């Protein structure tokens, strides 16, 4: 009973009470949506998706979504997820591009523009149109069409203006920005280059995964520790308010709750949201980027499964999996067990 109030707080956050939604306005080719509940459905015009839902397009697939003041174009062979995290005390939408290509256009500024998240970086935007390419090896390229974008990874930020781009290798800070040479390269060609780089140096790709995983594990752990401390305080204040009921007037109890219980609710929810956000980002990286890296290397070495390069890769990948198993997997649990 003691934990009931805090559990409700958690469940509300987990249920996406503060969910940020996007509506499908156009779709063409193969596209499915994996709902937060785990259910999968074909994407169709008019459907609305919310925080935790993921859109996956096949070859030649395309989905266009709208949010308040924003158009999101999800290109072919893409994994795109609506997420949220707390920024400045408020839930903020996050458009997560794990694989493929997404173009984002802000039609008008609302002051609550979502962040753009790739496997290895995050970008904040200020009135802009930009394209995100997410590669099979976890690399990202941000290309700005108009407006301003700040791309950040591992504490280094790069400001981009119109016709500027930057690449971020997974597990590394952003590289130097450069001027976009339009029409010379598309996402498919760029990703082919990323695959070739991955096959040439698979251990570097796994090390990139491990670096990013270590970051996600640490941040998630910090938020989770804070969350647990907040939850303990919240539980204690609730208990205190409950004990007051026997000797104090209802008005006094309500005043105590207003002063001591209510102010803890939103920060506790926000800490849960942020811990969960980083855990899910790590899970997406492991599933889609890690899974693809493993597949590409497996295919390369199918004809020679005893090859030393394959064995080295398998050993290093096993370390990545162990790190994921200890740092992320145990905390991807139902809210009541968090």
């Amino acid at each position, binding site marked *: 009973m003691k934990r009931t109030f805090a559990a409700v707080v958690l469940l509300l956050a987990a249920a996406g009470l503060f969910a940020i939604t996007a509506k499908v306005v156009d779709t063409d080719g193969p596209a499915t949506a994996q709902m937060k509940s*785990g259910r999968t459905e074909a994407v169709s015009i008019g459907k609305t998706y919310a925080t935790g839902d993921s859109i*996956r397009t*096949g*070859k030649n697939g395309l989905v266009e979504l709208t949010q308040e003041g924003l158009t999101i174009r999800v290109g072919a*062979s893409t*994994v795109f997820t609506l997420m949220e995290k707390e920024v400045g005390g408020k839930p903020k939408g996050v458009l997560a591009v794990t*694989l493929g290509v997404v173009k984002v256009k802000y039609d008008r500024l609302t002051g609550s523009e979502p962040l753009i998240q790739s496997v290895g970086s995050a970008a904040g935007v200020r009135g802009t149109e930009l394209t995100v390419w997410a590669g099979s090896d976890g690399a990202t390229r941000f290309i700005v069409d108009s407006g301003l974008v700040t791309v950040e990874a591992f504490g280094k930020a790069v400001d981009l203006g119109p016709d500027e781009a930057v690449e971020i290798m997974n597990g590394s800070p952003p590289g130097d920005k450069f001027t976009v040479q339009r029409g010379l390269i598309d996402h498919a060609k760029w990703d082919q280059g990323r695959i070739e780089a991955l096959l040439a140096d698979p251990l570097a790709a796994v090390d990139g995964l491990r670096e990013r995983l270590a970051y996600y594990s640490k941040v998630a752990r910090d938020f989770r520790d804070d969350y647990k401390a907040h939850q303990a305080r919240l539980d204690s204040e609730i208990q205190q308010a409950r004990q007051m009921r026997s000797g104090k007037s209802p008005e006094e109890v309500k005043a105590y709750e207003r002063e001591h219980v209510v102010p803890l609710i939103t920060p506790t929810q926000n800490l849960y949201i942020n811990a969960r956000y980083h855990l899910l980002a790590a899970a997406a990286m492991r*599933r*889609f980027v*890690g*899974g*693809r890296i*493993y*597949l590409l290397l*497996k*295919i390369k070495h*199918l*004809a020679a*499964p005893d090859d030393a390069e394959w064995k080295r890769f398998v050993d290093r990948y096993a370390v990545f*999996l162990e790190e*994921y*198993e200890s740092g992320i*997997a145990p905390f991807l649990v139902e809210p009541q067990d968090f």
Partner: protein
Amino acid sequence: MSAAIVALLASCSTFQRMSDEKGAAWVARQLNEGNAAELAAVSSSPFLLDGEIIALPGDTVALWNGLIKAGVKLDPELSRALAVGTDTWREFGSTRDVQVYFGKYVAKGARLFELPTVKGRAVLLLYRSAWGSRKVFGFKGPY
């Protein structure tokens, strides 16, 4: 009476063996004849490859194409066949992902087959309904 029970049990195990051989032989034939599209059409998504989950259907197609291109041929002679049980997931890996995959995606009644290849052994995770429809849930090897 007891003779009838023995005969019934014997016919059950014979039927099971025939069904196993038929299911695994079909997959082996498709792979050996280069029919990646046929295999992709009966593959689960997500799909289990060794201890890794292949989340996207396009990647499962790439796997079957890769196996064919690499010349991996399955010998339809079964070296092992067993029903999927509580601990069968350990045949593929030791992670929670593999365990969850078995609990969440692998159909009740699915069976695990081990088949020889020129480059080592391969393991298939296959469901075959009483009406003959099939679903491949996983592939491991050659190892």
